[in-house]
Structure formats: structure tokens, C-alpha cells
């Protein structure tokens, strides 16, 4: 377990910025009330075995007691480095993203299931969409009851969505809560 170096930090932050925009500040400066300290600490990012964790400072301090090979996980895992060296967000980061999301898409109830099986979001599945999404932005996917279902990357801007036919892809799938069942072993 070690703090991220400069390059890694910028990569992680850029990725998060796509989803939350200026709310990134809230993620970094979020006060944590864990631990015995009276004054709240902060959350920080840690790299452990190719995975990035988001954990409170007090938790990190206590985790140092555990030997590196024995430490399985700490805090919330938000992403991992692939073998190719690129950074991917994993579905555990969903809670963090959903709370601060800038671009959102709501799915119609009948098409939730399709998304949870790992398919892309089609235009026909859209119940609602926030204004001015540009192509390439990170989008958090919600059900109509405001339950976060997953996240992805916008394939089309909001403007283009209007002219799109119902079978066109609006959001490219990156992660969804179905993965907790489908890829239990990997996570």
C-alpha cells in the first residue's frame, strides 16, 4: 500500500473529473468522521496491488499494522490498473460517482435489466437525460427511482440524441451493479 505518485494521481483525477466535473473537490475534501480524533480527517487515495482505494486517513493509519501480503483491501476500491497500464474505474466507485455526478441518464424500467446484463444504453431505453452532455463525457446511469445502476461514457451529445433513431447507442457501458453477481470472483 502506498500513496499515488504524480502521474498516477493525474490519471485517476482525470478519470473522475469526466464524471463529476467540479464536484471532484467534494470528493477530495470530504470530511471523514471515522476514528477517535475529534476533528474530522480527510479521505485519501491509496494504491495496493494494482488497485486504487479511497479510504479515510484514520483507516489508512490503522491499516499500516497489517503486512502488505496479508492486506486484501481497505476502504472503497474505486478502480484498478490493467496489465496494459491504463486505469479503469470499477463498479465499486459507483456510490462515489452517483453522489457527485454531473451528467446523468435515467433508464426506463423495462430496459433496466438489459443494462444490468452489461449492454449499452440505447436511445429507446432513455427515460430522461441531463442537458448538454458532450460525446465522451462520463455518465452515471440511474433507474427512474433514482437508484444508481452503473456508469459509462456518452456516445452522443444530448443534441444529437434528439435526432438519433431508437436503436442508436447513447451511453457506452463501463460498469453496472450486475457485475457484483456476474464477476464476483474478479472483484
Amino acid at each position, binding site marked *: 500500500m502506498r500513496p499515488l505518485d504524480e502521474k498516477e494521481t493525474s490519471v485517476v483525477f482525470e478519470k473522475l473529473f469526466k464524471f463529476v466535473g467540479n464536484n471532484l473537490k467534494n470528493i477530495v475534501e470530504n470530511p471523514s468522521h471515522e476514528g477517535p480524533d475529534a476533528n474530522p480527517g480527510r479521505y485519501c487515495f491509496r494504491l495496493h496491488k494494482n488497485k486504487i482505494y479511497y479510504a479515510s486517513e484514520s483507516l489508512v493509519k490503522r491499516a499500516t499494522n497489517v503486512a502488505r501480503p496479508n492486506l486484501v483491501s481497505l476502504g472503497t476500491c474505486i478502480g484498478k490498473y490493467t496489465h496494459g497500464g491504463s486505469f479503469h474505474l470499477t463498479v465499486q466507485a459507483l456510490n462515489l460517482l452517483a453522489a457527485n455526478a454531473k451528467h446523468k441518464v435515467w433508464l426506463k424500467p423495462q430496459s433496466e435489466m438489459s443494462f444490468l446484463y452489461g449492454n449499452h444504453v440505447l436511445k429507446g431505453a432513455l*427515460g430522461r437525460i441531463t*442537458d448538454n452532455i458532450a460525446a465522451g463525457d462520463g455518465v452515471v446511469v440511474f433507474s*427512474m427511482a433514482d437508484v444508481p445502476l452503473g456508469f459509462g461514457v456518452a456516445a452522443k451529445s444530448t443534441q444529437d440524441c434528439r*435526432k438519433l433513431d431508437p436503436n442508436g447507442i447513447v451511453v457506452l457501458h463501463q460498469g453496472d451493479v450486475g457485475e457484483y453477481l456476474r464477476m464476483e470472483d474478479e472483484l
Partner: protein
Amino acid sequence: MGKKKQKVVLPPELPPEIPDDEVEVSDEDLQFIKENRNYASLLSTLDTHSITKHVTRVADAKDDALEKLYEKRMQKNALKKEKEETGLQVDRVDALPIKTLDGKLHYRTASKTVSENDLSEEGTAEDTNMDEGMVKLTKAEKRAKLKKMKKEAKKQGKEMAKAEVEETPHAAVLAEVKEDLTAEQTFESKKCKLAELGNALLTDPESNIKLLKEMVQLSKDDDHTIVKLGLLSLLAVFKDIVPGYRIRLPTEKELEMKVSKTVRKMRYYESTLLSAYKAYLQRLVILEKKPLFQHVAVRCICSLLDANPHFNFRESLLEATIRNIGSTDEAIRKLCCSTIKSLFTNEGKHGGEVTVEAVRLIADYVKAYNCQMHPDSVDVFLSLSFNEDLLKSGKTEEDQKLKDKKSKKRKHSEASNQLTENDRKKSRQELISKTREEVEADYKAASFAPDVMERKQMQTETLSAVFETYFRILKHTMQSIGARPEANAGALSAAVEPLPLLAPCLKGLAKFSHLIDLDFMGDLMNHLKVLASGSSNSGNTSDKSSKCLTVSERLQCCIVAFKVMRNNLDALNVDLQDFFIHLYNLVLEYRPGRDQGEVLAEALKIMLCDDKHHDMQKTAAFIKRLATFSLSVGSADSMAALVTVKHLLQKNVKCRNLLENDIGGGSVSGTIPKYLPYSTDPNLSGALASVLWELNILSSHYHPSISTLASGISSMSTAHNQVLLSKSSPQLAFKEMSLDQELCFTQQSGSIKLKNKRRTNGPAASLSIGSTTVKSSFDDNELQRKLISHFMVHHDIKENERLRKELDRTASSLQLYEQYKKQKKLSKPRR
């Protein structure tokens, strides 16, 4: 006129002009004149020259000959005058001579007035016939006459001067009075003439069309009132006689052709009418620039345009009208605006062409003035109406055409496949279809209804001009906002450039939002977003630049954005997050007195009540903020806010957690564990972690309906899903309450009574009596009444107590007495 050659017969000579001094003016005469000035003036004001000329006119003589004759006579007269003057020299002894400015010597003689009177007396007989006679004069004669009149006037002026100098003071005063009277007289006569001409034109325009020119001539008079009257009477005439079609002057070829008498007559009529109309319009346009005549001219222009939008020269009329549409003069502006509006609404009159022109012109003016115009000038667009069916029908027609083509092709191919055995049949069919097409084309040309395609074309043009204007205004506003913070950083007192056109522009955009092209939508939304935020991006300047756009304007921007979105996108439900953020912050900036409550109510209605679906966090944040907001504003505003809150709570069951008196926290409130009242983003305010204590305070609001509403909201529970449909929108509530407020001020005591009743009946009865008395102590009468009633109650209680004591006493005494009796009875048998 008969054109027989006749020997020129000279008219009979006038009675020889009697030298003035030979006429003896008796005292009686003078007396008569003095007493009956009216008579005298009537006579003296007549145009003696023209009368004499008319009398002496030779009916059938050639003009030149006549003129020569007249000249001769003039010379004679002049000779005579000289003679007279030489004759006068005899009397020189009378007084000292006077030298006038032009160097002539004059000698005092008797007044000349009488001679003039004589002359005019002669003329009276012809007075009544004068007008008709003048009408029959030919052009050349008229010109000559005009010249002579001028000369005559000069001469008369000289004579008058002479007379004034020469006459005794008494006579001078007389002359002056006469002069005044003559002015009045000419005025009257001109007025009469105008009326007569107008009347003649209205009764029979065909034969009297020539009179138009004369009327136009009259309206070029020196006298202001006459000019005005002339313009107005011409207006009446033109309004009546202008035909319902556009006049096309015949081409040279057509002129050469032989035509029937009636056609020639018609042509003459039309061309005369047209030229007079043109002259009149030119006159109007010239006069419109002079401040003295502006009102009259603009009125004439407007009513002409309103009455005959189809007629020739409407372009100049339209131009003049639109030039004045942004005038600083209230009356003129109103007039022009109403004219343009009526043009827009009554398109049937001119087939829509004028609408296009008018809109184009306005657009050009907005461009030229760089958006610094009166808001009324853009407000007129609101009365435009676009036929949506037209756009749709056009499309379907095209589709049909396409289909027809396809089917034809198919038919064709089928037919070719089916061999050419029935060639004859086919050719016949073709013939039939050809004739049908021809007939249709003829019908189209003849039918009165304009072509659908043409109308569609015009509508498109109008729309594009309107939106061009609107976008120009928006852009201008953006630029001025962007430039301002840099230009006067820190200088708050710097004159803020007004944006007069923004409000009508936003209104118009909201109204025509369903017609905006989808391609413009993105840009429009971006503009609106920036405007709604009231600043360019940098946070530091936001305070300053928000000063240039008022809260109401920014709210209006949000409303427009929502309307645009709603009207265009039935299929795609777009969540306008940014506008919600702006609204959330604008609620805090709202000040009851300064900003328009109606706009806020409308925004609440459109943005919060009409939207079907909201995030939980956002809704909770809005509920919390609106509840807080309603604590600090007037009853009408807070009513609107509370109605919205109720609506939101009914729709979002989860948000009813706010009504529990236990802070939600944990999983419900998301990542933000504490309510942040100053957060700018509704999604991050953590409102779900709070409790709506505001409702408790509001339920003791001074206004009965607010307190009941607040208590009603707080009694909603999360447990069972109540299906309560709110009847009123925030707008309605606001209106009702603001009406109510006005009433309340007049009937304050009544409302307080009502409130007190409610207090005692309702759930809030636990409030102590003391607090109510303290509250109502502002009203002396009320206090007195309260005290009296309080006293009465106390008094009753005391009285009751007293009576009860008495009753007890008597009861006990009765008992004693009974016991005594029993004892007596017992003792008696013992005995």
C-alpha cells in the same frame, strides 16, 4: 365646353373706378360701418380681383387673347390711377406730404375704404357661384390666376400700408380689425371649401376625381390648422374611395391600343387617384418629420395603412410607421404599435405580404439601432400568429407527391410490362389527366385563396426574421454583459447600459418556442444559461454583473428555457440541471418588493410543479429552501412557495422523510451527512438530513390560509400514500393571495376575528390566551372587546360562585329545618 369659334365679345366694362376723394364719406356711412362691422368685413374680405375677373370673364375666348385683354385693362387702370394722382395734387395744401420707403410722395386724402367696400358689394352677388366657377377653370387659367392673385395680394398689401399711413388713427384701427377678420374669413371659407370638396368626392368619386388634386393643393396651405384639416379630410376621402385592389398603371403599349370609352374613363380615374395619393403620401412623409404636424401625419399614415394595406405605395406607409414605432412620444408609439398589431392579426386583408415586410423592417431597425429601442417595438411580434397546420400540411403534401410519383412510376412500369396493346386507351387517359391539370391550374389562378406553398414561404420568411431579431437581442445582451465587468471593474456607479428589449424578446421566445429550429436549440440554450446565471464564468465578477440583469429577468430566462424544451421535445425528456441550480440560487436573491412575484410563481409552476420526475436530493433541497424562503417573504409569495412544497411532497414520497422529526442521515442523505444551507448546488445540499421545522413556525402564521396550509402539509405522513390532488398552482395561489392582501388591509379587523376563531377551534388552540391578547394588542378596539369579554367571563364565574354559596347555605338551612321538624315529630309522640 362648346368649342365653337365666336367673336370675342369683351365683357362690359366695370363701373368706372371712382377716384377716392370724389366719394364723399358721410358720417352716417362711417357710423354704419362701425356698428355693423360684420357686414363690412364680409364684404371686404372677398377676393375682389378674382370676382371682378370672374364677372368680366369671357366664356369662350382663347386664353391668350383674354390675357392680352386683361393686360390692356390693367394698363388702362394704371394710367387712370396716375391721372388720379395728378388730379390729387390740387389738394396738396391740406397737409404735409409723407414720403414712404419706396420714395413716393403721398398726400393726405380721405380714406379709401369705402371704395373697396363698393367693389366688394358688387362681388357679393357672385359669391355663391364662385366655387363652381373656379372649378371649371382650366389649368393654365388657374396658374395665371394664382400668379395674379399673388400680385394682387402684394399690391393690396402695399395699399393697405399706404392706407394705414394715410388714414386717421381711427381708420387705422378699423383696418386692423378688418385684417384680423379677413384672416378668420379666409380660414372659414377654406374650411368650407374643404368640406365641399370632400363631400363631392364622397358622393360621386368617379366624376369628381379631379377635385382630389385641389384638395392636395389646399393641404399645402400656410395655415397650420388648414393643413391639418386638409390632411384629415383627405384621409377620410382616401379611406373611402381607395379600391379593394392594387392599381397597375397601363403600359405604353396598352396606352396605344384602342379602348372603349368606359375603359378610358376608368384609366383616367385610376391614374388621377394614384397620382393624388402619391402626392398626399409624399406630403405626409415630409410633414411627419416636422414636430408641429407629427401627430396628425402619423395618425393619417397609420389609419391609411390600417385601412388599405393592399394598395399601392404601402411600402412608404409601412416604413414611416415602423420608423415611429420606437418613438419617444407615447401617443405616436401607441398608435403605430396598434396599427402594426392589427396588420399582423388581420392578415386576410393583404395576404400576409405586408407582415413579412413589416417584420423585416423591424428587424432591420433593431439591427441599425443596436438594440437600443423602446420595448414596444419588439412587443408587436407577440401578436403575430403562425399557422402550424400550414407547415404540417405542406409536408404531408410533399409526401403525397412523392408517393404519387412512386405509384406513377410503378404504374408506368406495370403498364409497360403489360404490353402496349391498349395504347389508345392510355393516350386517352393522358389527355384526360392533362386537361384536368390545366383546369386545376386555372382554378388556382382564379381562386381567391392564396397558394399554400406561397403562404408557407411567407411564413418561413417572417419566422426567420423574427428569430433573427430575437437572437440578435440575446447576443447583444450577452456581449454587453461580457464586456461590462471588464470595462468598469469596481466602478459600481458606472452607468449601466439598459437592455430594454430583453424582456419582450424573452416573452416572444417563450411564445414561439415550438417553432424554433432544432439546430438553433443548442446555441439558444447556451445563451439562456449564461443569461440566467447573470454573469460570465468567472466567479469574482458575478456580484457586479448580476446587477445588470434583474432577478425577474433571470427567472424569465429559466422559464423560457423550460418552455422551449417542453414544447420541442415530447420524445426526449431532458433534465435541465443548470437551470435548476440557477433557480435554487435565485430564490435566495429574490426580494419581495423589488422583483415580480408573478414571475417567481410562474417559474415555480413550470420548473417544479409541471416536471414529472425529479431527483430525490434535488427535490428535498428545493422543499427545504422554499420552506425557509416562505418564512421571510409576504403572504402571497410564501403561499406560492408553500403550494409548490406541498406539490413536491405529494409527488415524492421519499422526501416526506423531511416531515419526520428525526434527522434522516445515513444512507438516505447520501454522502453528505449534514444539511448545508448555503450550498449552491441543490444536489449537494444534503437537505434530506434536515427536518422541516419551518412548517411549525408557519402554522402559526398570521394569515389563516397559510397557517392551515402549513399545518396540512405537516400532517402528511410517510406511512400511507395519500392521493391528494392539489387544485391550485403556485401562480393561482399567488394571484389569489395578492388579491386577498389588498382586501385584508381594508378589512383588517374582520380577518383578525376570523383568525381568532380559527385559533380557538383548530389544533393550535393550546396557545395561551395571553399570547393572543398580546398579539392583538395593536388594535385598541379589539383589545377593549377582548378585555370586556374576559371581564365578563370572570364576572360570571364570580357570580356563579356566589350563587352557589348561597344555594349551599339555603340547602343546609333547609336541611337543618328538616332535622328540627323530625326531632319535633319524634318528641311529640313521646309526649
